[in-house]
Structure formats: structure tokens, C-alpha cells
């Protein structure tokens, strides 16, 4: 998914700012009408956001502040319990590992996605034969439904018959229980997630490179700069604004990754690959005795963390625009 922004409409030298009193009644009527028309065009969106964003979020907050059982969930008369669910969740022995896994999953994924995406962007920036076609093919992992990628990687990581262990056997590596051993489950889902995220980084960083003027490179070539020097002294510094945006967006997306981990390991074995996202779902829907309250509480904590990075992203972007 991508996050996009609205370009704030250019503030044209407002012609109607002569002062309301200076307007003829007809003009005033026209202005009121155009304001009404504008509202009519955004009204469906406002209603939509209220019904299908605010209300679900409110329901989720409400869930996290009440003591729900399956019966009271259906009947809708669960008693208000304040911060109990949050306290319960923070005291849960799963909390610390889930938070740690979320952080490891996010930061390791981003580091590799960014580094590999950047290397590929620089590589594809050279325009060789077939470069456009190959660059397009690189998008495939990002476009595939997550369940497709997740189940393919699951089978590749199969400990007895998986192709990954088969390749590793050439190097004398004993079969690894990728998804079945607590030590390897988290690295396995991280590897799959890196694979999925590379295209996004490649595309954005590549389009950032397109904006570096060719003269800069020509000047560097005249000065006899080596490829590494060009990258260190020119490409990387000039790409910093785009890099910041890419990494921050990546953080927001990666924090909320759920499908991939759920399909590959369900957060297991044990809690060895559970993140806040999978733990929240596990609590709410993963067992026969759903704990909606604590599940929603974990979800709300996740929103808070995502918002921190999200607001940072908005700040960085606004500053770049200015």
C-alpha cells in the first residue's frame, strides 16, 4: 500500500477577499452557493470516514476499555473497566517479547529493504538493454497477494522438503527448521518480508534518482571520481530527502504487517515470532475463548506506535515541501 498526500490547493490571490460587506447581494448568494456545492462534493467522504473509520476506531477503543466475555460481547452489556485491559496486557509475559519482535522485525526488514532497494535503484539507473523490463519484473513480489507470497515461502522454508534447505545442503549446512524452531521463525518471516518490500524501496528510490540532474554526474566524471566516490559524495547525500520519506513510510507499513506472519507461523512456535499485530489478533480471534478487550488494547498500543512514526513522516514531508 502506499501513502499519498494531498497537495494543498494553491492559495490563489483570493479575488473575493474585498471584504464581505463590499459584496453585492447577488455575489454573496453565489459565494454561499459555491460553498454549499463544495460541501456536497466532500460530504459523502466525510460521512464515509465517520461511519467506516471513526466508528470502527471508536468501537475498538470501547472494546479495550471494557471487560468483555463472549456472551457480553454479543449482548453488548460489558462493564466498563477503565485501563484494566491495558494493565493486563502490559503485565502479560507475552508483551515484552512481542514488542521486541515487532521492533526487530520492523528495523531489520527496513534496513535490508532499503539497502537492497538503493543498490538496485543505482544499478537500474544506468539504462542498459532490458533495464526497463527487468525493473518492471522486480515489482512482482510487491503486487502478489500476501497469502500467495506467504504460502510460497512457507513451502520453500519447509524443513524436510523445502528448496532453501536443499540449496543450503550444497554448502554443507544441515537442514534448518526454519518455521518450526523458535530460533529461526522470526528470521524466516523477516526474510520473506524483506523480499516483499524491496520493490517499494526500489521504485521510490529510483524515481528519486531520476531527479538528480545528469550534469552533476558529468562533472564528477570529469573530475575522475570513482563509482564509489560518486555514490558516497553525490548520490547518497542528494537522495537523503527521498530516503527519509522511504524509510519512514516503510516503518509505518512494516509495523502493521500481519498477514505474512500469521499465515507463515501464526506467531509461533510458542511466541517466538509473535509481534504486537499478531498477538492482538491472537487474543481477539485466534482462540476458542476470545479476549476482545486485551486484543483491542494491544491494537490501540500499535496505533500509538504507528502514529509516532506517521507524524514524523508528515513533519518531514511538510518540511521538504516548504
Amino acid at each position: 500500500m502506499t501513502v499519498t498526500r494531498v497537495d494543498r490547493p494553491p492559495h490563489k490571490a483570493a479575488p473575493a477577499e474585498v471584504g464581505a460587506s463590499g459584496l453585492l447581494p447577488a455575489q454573496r448568494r453565489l459565494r454561499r452557493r459555491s460553498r454549499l456545492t463544495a460541501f456536497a462534493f466532500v460530504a459523502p467522504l466525510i460521512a464515509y470516514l465517520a461511519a467506516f473509520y471513526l466508528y470502527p476506531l471508536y468501537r475498538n477503543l470501547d472494546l479495550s476499555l471494557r471487560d468483555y466475555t463472549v456472551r457480553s460481547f454479543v449482548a453488548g452489556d460489558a462493564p466498563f473497566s477503565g485501563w484494566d485491559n491495558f494493565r493486563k496486557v502490559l503485565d502479560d509475559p507475552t508483551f515484552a517479547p512481542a514488542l521486541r519482535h515487532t521492533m526487530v522485525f520492523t528495523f531489520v526488514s527496513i534496513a535490508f529493504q532499503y539497502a537492497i532497494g538503493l543498490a538496485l535503484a543505482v544499478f537500474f539507473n544506468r539504462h542498459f538493454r532490458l533495464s526497463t523490463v527487468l525493473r518492471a519484473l522486480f515489482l512482482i513480489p510487491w503486487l502478489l497477494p500476501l497469502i500467495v507470497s506467504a504460502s510460497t515461502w512457507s513451502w520453500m522454508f519447509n524443513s524436510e522438503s523445502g528448496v532453501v534447505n536443499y540449496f543450503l545442503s550444497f554448502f554443507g549446512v544441515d537442514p534448518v527448521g526454519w518455521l518450526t524452531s523458535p530460533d529461526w521463525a522470526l528470521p524466516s518471516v523477516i526474510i520473506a518480508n524483506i523480499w516483499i518490500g524491496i520493490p517499494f524501496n526500489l521504485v521510490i528510490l529510483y524515481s528519486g534518482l531520476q531527479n538528480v540532474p545528469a550534469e552533476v554526474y558529468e562533472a564528477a566524471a570529469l573530475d575522475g571520481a570513482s563509482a564509489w566516490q560518486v555514490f558516497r559524495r553525490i548520490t547518497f547525500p542528494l537522495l537523503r530527502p527521498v530516503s527519509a520519506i522511504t524509510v519512514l513510510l516503510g516503518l509505518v507499513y512494516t509495523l502493521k504487517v500481519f498477514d505474512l506472519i500469521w499465515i507463515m507461523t501464526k506467531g509461533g512456535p510458542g511466541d517466538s515470532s509473535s509481534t504486537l499485530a499478531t498477538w492482538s489478533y491472537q487474543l481477539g480471534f485466534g482462540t476458542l475463548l476470545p479476549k476482545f478487550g486485551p486484543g483491542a488494547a494491544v491494537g490501540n498500543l500499535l496505533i500509538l506506535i504507528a502514529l509516532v512514526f506517521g507524524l514524523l513522516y508528515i513533519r518531514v514531508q511538510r518540511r521538504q515541501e516548504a
Partner: protein
Amino acid sequence: MTSLNGSRRHTILGLVLTALMLFPVYWMVNVSLTPQQHMRKNPPDLLPLHPTFEGYRAVLHDQLPYLGTSLLIGLGTVALTLLIAAPAGYALARLRPRGGGALGLALLIAQMIPGIVMAMGFYGIFLDLGLLNSWWGLIVADSTIAVPFGVMIFTAFMSGIPGELIAAARIDGASTLRTFWSVVLPVSRNALVTVSLFGFLWAWSDFVFANTLDGGGGLRPITLGIYKYIGNNNQEWNAIMATAVVASVPAAALLVLAQRYVAAGVTAGAVKD
């Protein structure tokens, strides 16, 4: 720029890198064609030398209804998304409604909310309203992924439409609605295509909402079809992978038919021009 020799070296390296990157996709196809009795062979068959179509036969047999549902949900999501997002995008780009800036910020933040949180909230609401396991409930939920994105694409695009075009329509006496319908929408084809493509793809790929809100319905999407396969018959990986291949068709079609729009969608707004 580079010598012919260097260019060829680059092409070869590019092919190798692409092959590495796409190996999992190849492996999915390869496994989908592997006969069941060879599935756990060691070493595995790296090439589908003895292809079988039993996996695809299983898809035809078991998964067609799921594919139909996904198509329905995908198209419904696109329709709902366009209906909400296109007028709003026009208003934000051109009509300067009150509170437009705040709305833009709200849309940005909306895109950052984790899907599981939305799913849990929707679950509560749908349970109250008796909408669980309904295909159109799933359309509503899936559209929340695409609407904020859609509004922003439309806003960005419609801001770029020449003002004279709109002014000319006004002078001819067209109402705002008329101008929107017969002038703005037709020239916004690129934005319409981009939003539709992504809306469809996201709805088609959705797993979280489907698994939460439509787990037991009569009409379930293909992502649940695959998930059920994985859960039920852990052994028939050619059928699982064949379903995965079929489920990937929209993504592949998208890449072939509309690559330009895809790249536009990924970078839209993320990069300052």
C-alpha cells in the same frame, strides 16, 4: 554513455538479479506442476520435467466460487471507492471546501491505521448489525484500504487540470456537477485507472478483513480459499500452489497492461518532484 561491453555486462547482471528475485515466483509455478508423489523427493525437481495438472484440476474443482466472489468483491470495492473518492478529490483540488486541509491530514493518518485494528472494530459493528459473513460487508471493509489513497490520487491529479478547461465549461453555463461529470472526469482517466487498479488489487488480496469478517460465509474470497487449503490438506502443495498461481493472475495482468500506472501509484506523493 557506457561502452557496449559494459552495457552487456549490466544486462547479464540484471538478468541474474531478476532471476534471483523472482525465484520464489518460479518455485510457486514449479511446485504447482509437481506430481504429488514427487513433492517430498530429495533432491526436489528444479524443473517441471514431468508436469501434472492435477493441482489446477483441483483449483477448477474447488476454487471457482472463491474466485468469483473475489471478482465480485474487487469490482464492488472499485465502484464504492470511485463513488466516494472522485467527487471528494475534485472538491479538495478545486472547490476549496471549508476544512479541506484538516480532511487531507485525516486521510493521511487513516492510511497509517493497522488493518487488524480496523478489522476488530468492524467485527464488533458487523456483529451488532448482523452483517458478518456478507459479501457486501466485506466490500465496505475492503474499500477503507482504497478510499484515502483514492482521494489523494484524485486530488493530486485534478489540481493539475488546466483552469481554462473548467472555466470554459462554466462560461458555457455548465453546473459544477455537470463540469465534474463531462469535463473533469473524462480528462482524469489516468487517475481513474490508477485508483481502480489498486482498489481492485487490494480487495482481491485482502486477507485480514476476509478472515475476520467473512470466515463462515457462503461467499468467501480466494484468499480464504488458499488459507483453507493450507489448513486442511497440508500435503497437497501442488493444489495450494496452483491456487496461488491463479490468485496471482490479476497482479500479473496489472503489471503487463498497466505498468505505468503501477509505478505512478507507488510513488504518488511519496516523492517530491
